[in-house]
């Protein structure tokens, strides 16, 4: 995923109606972009997996 710019972040907050102090978007951008980490399992992720399949995995992994 591409990095978010501070302008995009300001627009998002405006859309949500959440007030954001001046200059905050510039500080939020690197922190939010930092969460988008490389993960070797991403490429092997089966198409059929969704958030709910985790509960089935829990049972398999007991």
């Amino acid at each position, binding site marked *: *995923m591409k990095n*978010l710019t501070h302008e*995009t*972040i300001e627009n*998002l*907050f405006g859309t*949500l*109606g*959440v*007030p*954001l102090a001046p200059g*905050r978007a510039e500080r*939020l*951008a690197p*922190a*939010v972009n*930092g*969460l*988008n*980490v*490389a*993960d070797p*399992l*991403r490429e*092997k*992720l089966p198409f059929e*997996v*969704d*958030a709910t*399949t*985790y*509960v*089935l*995995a*829990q*049972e*398999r*992994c*007991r």
Partner: protein
Amino acid sequence: MSNAALLTLAEARARLGQRDISADELLQACRARIARWQPRINAFIDTELRHAGAASGPLAGIPLAHKDMFYRAGRVSNCGSKIRKGWVAPQTAAVLERLDAAGAADIGTLNMSEFAYGPTGHNEHWGDCCNPWNPDYITGGSSSGSGAAVAARLVFGALGSDTGGSIRLPAAACGVTGLKTTWGRVSRHGAMPLSHSLDTIGPLARTAEDCALIFQAIAGHDARDAITSRAPVQVNLMQRPLRIALSSDWIEQNAHPEVARAVLAAAKVLGATREVKPPAFDTLSAHCLTVMQAEASAQHLQWMRERPQDYSSAVRVRLEMGYPIPAAQYLEALRLRTSHLEQFVSTTLAEADAYLCPTIAVPLPTREQTGPGGGPDMPKRLADVTRLTRWVNFLGVPSLSVPCGFDSRGLPIAMQLVGRPFAEGTLLAAGHAYQRETDWHRRLPPE
């Protein structure tokens, strides 16, 4: 008994059963310690009796107190916040119903991080909770009062919640035992939500045996929390053998030398010899943060629109972090959870029942270093403290934090044992085996 409050929960239970002591004597002993310690550590929010103990049941007459986020109908739950100050709960949490049924007394509410969204125990609305071993240092959070109250022997056990480490961090920092349960093991009905894909509830107590007693009282399916499992709740503290894996090289290279020494010594006591490649702590932790921040921010959206000034600056900043996370990134993290859980179980735990690592790999910071005036190093210090807890929440597996030493400043050091889904019993058995061989859990903070 000169001071009944110093007994473990299991010992107190046995004395009550033998009629060597009465429930009222236990309660008075706790109250006397609360009066002495509360001005120093600010562990309690309210010390009014909320539920009298019963004469029968597995926890009959045992004084407990809980993080101020477990609702009791008609009583106030402030959730560590200004926004919910004085809020009266319309329902009782499933976990409190179960502890009531087990006969436990509920003797007050405990301090916590604002909305359970902070890893240190700072709270600008209700006052910081302070570490009983040295009040200049953090208690760990967000179940700060639970860790401090149990460590100072003000109660025999306490409930906490753990979304990114909030049971294990205060357990480790305060020198008590804390169990983060499997996601779906304990009902969250009537507990304040933070991040529904990660939130778990569990006990903090003096020993693994005490945690087992509370865990067995609260765990199990509840139709009011749709994710709760029907997996049987089994604890056999004498379960053997226990095969424990670890990554000694990683610990030696990444943990502070005093922490590494204590944790590797604990590994020897447990006979942990299976060396494995460490899980991808930092990747899993980033996924955990993605999920936690997206969900917590959504949960708080209305108040963030209408009352943003009523949050502390630290919590407001954390909540702001969640709004720009793309929905696809959030959902991809949840999809990756299945693959990572399967990988952890099939590789890290391929030939082991539990994985051992430090709970906190760095020396405990002070409240000043991690508070509002903490300066430019503060974010790094917080990241260091939480580095080894969030990955467990992302996987959704259970973890037991156990005291395993003290550093040169006299502050506790802890290890955590991480297991398969629903294997709390195995972890408690390992913790119990360790505590039969060591006495770290019996040491008391200086009076």
